[in-house]
């Protein structure tokens, strides 16, 4: 499903190189590929069109015509423009400096508001501040209970008034917070359609009553073209102050981010990366730009590795993974580290386009134990050079590890497929990118 922009541009420029000079037409051709990539990533049609126009002017005007490596140059210009459009740098939430500070959360049905309320509460708790989550969704079945269960799981106080309107609940919650020395009040409102006037009026009324310091719109990163209409209308009626993108742990390219940012001008502040209260990260425009362009999120991968595993080892693992030098010995050594990182698919899933390739390989946590046992039954020589493992060696390894020969075969097959895949990623995707874009330059 993914079409890799960098690959495509490489093709375009291969043609150009064959024809000598880079012309305005060449730029147009490559930008057509860029436009297609943006549309496939769900960037709104008009937003994509305007963006391409802007990039074209930049490209034609200056560097590209004289540059030696036009492909890199264009990718860089496009990437930089996208980063700028997405806000340049990471923007923080409103400071928690009053008693209480108020954050209000709104958005379409099912976008991830209630989960986000718990996530922000946990974040606040980790800063040693006291928060109160307020259930102002009186419509969806068990919405109040949902927030209560989440609040209990992170030991944060929960507020709700049975039989009251959302306006009353929110208003009372602020009063309660003031009396009880609560630093942050987080209002979880019901999901609603932007075209439902009555429900939008409800939000306007809550806003007028509580005067939130931060009014967040939660947007599903899988949203299509309509993201502009939704964001525009929420912003028109409520003057939102920030955006949270949810479900970024999937493989949606997330072009809606561009559309929403463009039509509201509001900063995207948060990236929701999973269902658990801990799965929240600040939004990084540069990573999002790479993701939308299909260039992967290696930076996140590396950071995640840094958090959980030894830094030196993580670097080595990265380098080895993406070179052909990754052997069974490394595999065994890193297996323990990998386990600490969480499910392998979610790690590799951060590299776009790979999760599908990985499906043929299927590394399950349970399998890892078995694999480790098999590798441990090999000699060091065999681990470095798996190709020497013949029939009789296989029998010995199988016996030694308490597995069948088929299991040994399967491991070898999987390993070689994996090696090939990582080798491909290492070669293809990151070759020919300008220095600033080369994700690994960040860790070297």
């Amino acid at each position, binding site marked *: *499903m993914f079409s890799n922009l960098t690959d495509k541009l490489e093709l375009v420029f291969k043609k150009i190189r064959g024809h000598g000079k880079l012309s305005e037409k060449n730029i147009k051709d490559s930008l057509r590929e860029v436009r297609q990539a943006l*549309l496939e990533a769900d960037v709104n049609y008009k937003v994509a069109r305007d963006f391409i126009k802007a990039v074209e002017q930049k490209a034609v005007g200056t560097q590209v015509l004289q540059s030696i490596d036009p492909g890199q140059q264009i990718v860089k210009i496009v990437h930089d423009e996208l980063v700028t459009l997405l806000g340049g740098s990471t923007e923080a939430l409103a400071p928690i400096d009053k008693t209480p500070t108020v954050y209000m959360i709104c958005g379409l*049905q099912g976008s991830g508001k209630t989960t986000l309320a718990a996530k922000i509460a946990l974040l606040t708790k980790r800063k040693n501040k006291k928060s109160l989550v307020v259930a102002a969704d009186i419509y969806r079945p068990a919405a109040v209970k949902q927030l209560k269960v989440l609040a209990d799981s992170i030991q944060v106080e929960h507020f709700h008034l049975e039989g009251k309107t959302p306006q009353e609940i929110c208003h009372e919650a602020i009063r309660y917070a003031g009396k009880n020395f609560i630093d942050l009040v987080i209002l979880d409102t019901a999901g609603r359609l932007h075209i439902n006037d009555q429900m939008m009026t409800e939000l306007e009324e809550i806003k007028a009553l509580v005067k939130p310091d931060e009014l967040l719109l939660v947007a599903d990163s*899988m949203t*299509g073209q309509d993201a502009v209409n*939704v964001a525009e209308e929420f912003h028109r009626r409520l003057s939102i102050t920030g955006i949270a993108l949810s479900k970024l742990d999937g*493989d949606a390219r997330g072009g809606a981010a561009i559309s929403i940012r463009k039509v509201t001008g509001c900063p995207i502040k948060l990236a929701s990366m999973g269902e658990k209260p801990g799965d929240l990260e600040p939004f990084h425009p540069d990573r999002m730009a790479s993701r939308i362009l299909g260039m992967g999120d290696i930076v996140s991968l590396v950071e995640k590795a840094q958090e959980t595993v030894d830094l030196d080892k993580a670097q080595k693992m990265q380098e080895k993974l993406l070179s052909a030098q990754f052997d069974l010995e490394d595999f065994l050594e890193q297996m323990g580290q990998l386990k600490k990182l969480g499910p392998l698919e979610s790690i590799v*899933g951060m590299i776009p386009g790979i999760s599908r390739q990985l499906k043929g390989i299927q590394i399950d946590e349970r399998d890892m134990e078995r694999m480790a046992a098999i590798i441990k039954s090999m000699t060091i020589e065999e681990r470095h050079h798996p190709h020497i493992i013949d029939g009789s060696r296989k029998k010995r390894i199988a016996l030694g590890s308490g597995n069948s020969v088929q299991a040994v075969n399967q491991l070898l097959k999987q390993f070689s497929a994996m090696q090939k895949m990582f080798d491909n990623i290492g070669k293809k995707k990151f070759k020919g990118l300008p220095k600033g874009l080369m994700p690994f330059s960040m860790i070297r």
Partner: protein
Amino acid sequence: MSGTLDKLKLSLSRTKDSILGRITRVVKRRRIDDDLLEEIEQILIEADVGVKATTRLIDRIRETAKERNLSEGADVVTLLKDEIATILIKEDGQLFSDEDIKPVVWIITGVNGVGKTTTIGKLATQFAGEGKKVIIGACDTFRAAAIDQIAIWAERSGVDIIRSQEGADPAAVAFDAASAAKAREADILLLDTAGRLHTKSNLMEELKKVRRVVQKAAPEATIYSKLIIDGNTGQNALAQTSVFMEAIGCDGLIITKLDGTAKGGVVIAVAEELGVQVDFIGLGEGIDDLQRFDSREFAEALFT
């Protein structure tokens, strides 16, 4: 019931207004040329039909126009209608088959927050209203208060529910539900599953296990897996459908939240690329806001 029909008409007319209305305006007194086709391309892409499907549609229109010597802009509408209808119209768009063996099991799946639980509430109501004995299995044991939520829907629709504790093994609930459905001679068992992103293969494995376990508990039963797609979804709907399809099959789609302003072009893209039928569309949060998807009617309504 008539409320639902009105809603559908309204919703369809909005879709019609947005896609067809715009196209009609665009083509008025114009000839088929590149500019015109580009404008139509924009309309389709803005409806989430997707670049590839749109390109294919436009190419076919261009070709057919040439073949048949058509040059009037208005002809484009007819051609588009034919093309989209061909894509959406499935010969055997049936929900059930004569060969089905009871209890018929519907495993309701989809990514997070698309409307699975709500849709089950609506389906249970419809099926129970048709005199069928329905049982719901609360297999989402993961999300906070998911069991309470589906329990409320079961109560609203007046059907039995098989449930367990939060944190329980979803496959165990599925087993109990299938056993109960069999023992109580239910017509239909609707299984609510936890939302899961198709990229998480451990969760997809869990889903496969649910299916296997149902088969074990009720070996004869006919099992269908239905995938719920949020109507607001962009191109990711294609990846969702193909991965879910591969994991546990996909016998039909239900597109929710089409009461918003999203155009539902995703239906066209998914149907064209993956050949899946659409069973229902969701048009709101109420218990009656579910409408059988009739491709002929839908295509007709879009173009008359």
